[in-house]
């Protein structure tokens, strides 16, 4: 299915947006991923992934309020669209399906 194919990093970003829903923007997505996956992430990579997700229609964004720690600068808040949620579910379903197809003998 062209257009909704998700790369590994895109998937991670999309999940992070879902986790932080209501407060998902560049910086929080970065910290979320860093905490969850225990690896350092570049802001540029996150922004470009968010961009691609936006182009694919999996997230929407709107300019949100300002906070003091941002020096009074506005942030772009992202939220997962219905299509995004469907894409995540599809991935999970495919994974589950694959997990279930593993013969039990393999692990013993």
């Amino acid at each position, binding site marked *: 299915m062209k*257009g909704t194919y998700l790369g590994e990093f895109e998937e991670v970003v999309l999940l992070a947006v879902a986790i932080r829903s209501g407060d998902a*923007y*560049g*910086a929080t997505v*970065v*910290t979320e991923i860093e905490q969850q996956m225990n690896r*350092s992430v*570049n*802001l*540029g*990579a996150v*922004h*470009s992934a968010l*961009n*691609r997700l*936006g*182009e*694919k*229609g999996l*997230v*929407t*964004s*709107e*300019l949100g309020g300002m906070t003091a*720690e*941002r*020096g009074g*600068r*506005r*942030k*772009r808040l992202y939220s997962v669209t219905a299509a995004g949620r469907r894409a995540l579910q599809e991935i999970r379903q495919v994974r589950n399906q694959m997990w279930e197809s593993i013969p039990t003998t393999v692990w013993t």
Partner: protein
Amino acid sequence: MKTPPRWARYLLHWFSAPHRVDELEGDLDELFQQRVEQLGIRKARRRYVKDVLSLMRPSLIKRQQPGWRSGAYAQPESLGRTGRTTLSLGSIMIQNYVKIAWRNLMRAKGYASINIAGLAVGMAASALIFLWIQSELNYDRFYSKTDRLFQVYNRDIFSGNAQVWGTTPKPLAPELKQNYPDIEDATRFRPTSFLLTAADKKLNSEGAYADPSFLSLFDFSLLAGNREKVLSGNNGIVITKTLAEKLFGTTDALGKVVQLDHKDSFSVTGVLDDLPNNTQFNGVSFLLPWTAFVTPSWDSDGWASNNNYTYVLLKDRVNPDVVNEKIKRLTATHLKGEINDVSNRQIFLHPASKWHLYSKQDNGQLTEGKIVTVRLFGIIAAFILLIAAVNFINLSTARSEKRAKEVGVRKVAGAQKSALIFQFISESVMLAFLSGILALLLIVLCIPTFNDLTDKQLTLSFGSVNFWVAAIGFVLFTGLLAGSYPAFFLANFQPVKVMKGISQSVHAVFSPRKGLVIAQFTFAIVLIIATLVIKHQINYAQNRESGYDRNNLVFTYLTGDLQEHYGSLQQELIQSGAAVAVSQSLGPITSINSRQWGLSWPGSTKADKDVEFDRFGADADFLKTTGTKLLAGREIDIRTYPTDSSAVLLNETAVKTMHLKKPVGTSISFDSRDWHVVGVVKDFIFASPYEAVNPVVVHGPKGSVPLAWASIRLNPANTTAKNLELAESVFKKYNPGYPFDYSFADESYKAKFADEQRTGLLTSLFTGLTIFISCLGLFGLAAYTAQQRTKEIGVRKVLGASVPSIIQLLTKDFIQLLGIAFVIGAPIGWYAMEKWLQDYNYRIAIGAGVFILTLCSSLLIVVLTVSFQAIKAALMNPVTSLRSE
């Protein structure tokens, strides 16, 4: 302060899209604050920079598109569409042009490589020449006060001939500075050479005495020392970087002691950076204070002897003509009573910008000189570029038929003429850029050889913006020059005609190009003539009888105590077997060290006093050492006849000039002394091999100038190395403090041809290049014509034409063009070379041989180039050629 690096923030603002800066910076700051807490300031800053760099990606840099709703990303479908339509029509067309241009190149690789290679060679050659011209134009013109610097010259009239010379009296500079408010400063300069010693190092070096102001007039960069003070003491010496390294092994030489000729010691007060290649002071490696200068016995401190150079600096905004008028008679007033006639003696100022390029004297004026060569090379460079461009034009228009359909389709589809012109010009600019890259490569490869040839140190300054601006400008210019004609030619095609298949007939396409081919060949022919004439002239002068035996003859300057010990030195040199004859001399016989006028002899008139004689001096064995021939009388021999110290030998020309019936025994006077003639020698070439022989006096050792040289005829029975080894041990015995320096007569003689040989070599190089480029073009053109006439040739062959007749058919046109070019080029070449030869007194006459050789060689070249294609076409099987559709 816990802030992110400021430069990274500027960087972000610079590259990122305006509508995103705010949010990105917010994110960065927030992350930064967090990281300061967690990781510390250093890591936080590093991460900040990393993040900024990671934001440099096209998707984030891209500016907001008009169709973009703010606040939300557009949907995928609409985004795709807007993305495409926002590309302007222009850029799509340019993409298309580039694509078509590339396909055309690939379709005809041979044609394209001829085109690019020709243009690249042309560009490389003309760029090298332009570099050379640039360095010539910059000669002695890079001082900060160049436009106010002048050298003082003398002018006078001798036997009706106006003469100028650059040496001036010693008191001139101080007087100019003192009495003329227009002159800000003046300095004297006197070249000298010494054996410099420091610790165990000994070096013969060239340098000069100069007034303290010398270094403020000529602002050569001083690595150490105070510019105003370095030359103001009595015993300070300024040395160049290289000399310092040679003497002390370091440039940190301040205060160290240098001894001159094992006598006076000077301490280093300044270190100069090595003087640039393009200054007349290039040979100077040390400067001594003027106050340390001791006038030698043969010179004087008065106004009558001219042995020093004088340079002046005018005040700002002073008209040099006005100053010239004021100082004109300065030396004349001082010389009144000292020399016979001061009515014509003048001094004048020669501006620094003209020192190098305008230094040839012509009837009492300094005109032209090297600038002629510069202009000539400029013309050659322009022509080489033009020829390469002509090639390009020829090949492009020749292939026009292939592009005719394309033009037709484009026009029908609505292309404006201007768009087509733009297309073809940009195509040729693209090709020019490809050639430019190739040319750059060629230049880098050729520059060392070219530097050897021209004795320059040209470099490409890749670091400078100017260089790239010039290079790109040059390429653009060439591209436009080469592309404009084909562009207009192609854009003018009428779509109805070309689409119907009515192409212009072969002859119609051919005719506008005829002119270009003729122009190419005319230039090539002029250059061939020039090469041949220069070669002949050099050979002619080289084969001229020199009048003395140059082999096994060496000269050495008698340094230190050698002049005092000359007698024993001479004996031991012969006893040791190193030499068969030794003669004490005034100088080397290959160059004039001294000239003399004011001679009088029985029957001489007042006008005869102006006749200039070349001076040579010898004590004995002059004939045996140099190999000159005696015609009458005997040679000077002070060992047999002590009175010979005032004896004189004349050469044939001198006897003729003096109208002496019986020269031997005549008494003549010059150098405030009477001399008696003891013999006459055959003329020998003392000065330039291109000049007529001057009258020469060879006098005994009693003259005012000491015989400071020894001419040595080496023993022919030994090898040269053996002789020199033996001689060195003798020299070392009498003069242990000095190295044994010598020069060979044959080498010095050869050096007299260096300039002409260089001109000859460069001309033949450029001729070769021109011919090469022309041939490339011709080859391409011939290939094209042959291809165009494939069908015709097939039909002819079927009807029984022979192979030679077809070759003849194809070559005839080109030979006709060559003929026309020869008719135009030959007179131009003849005229130019006549002018060139006028500079030489001893010269060839341009005979018919040169022209016949030129015609034959160019004919051969054309036939070889064209016939390859012609034969290929003629041998083709008509079956295949007629089937080709």
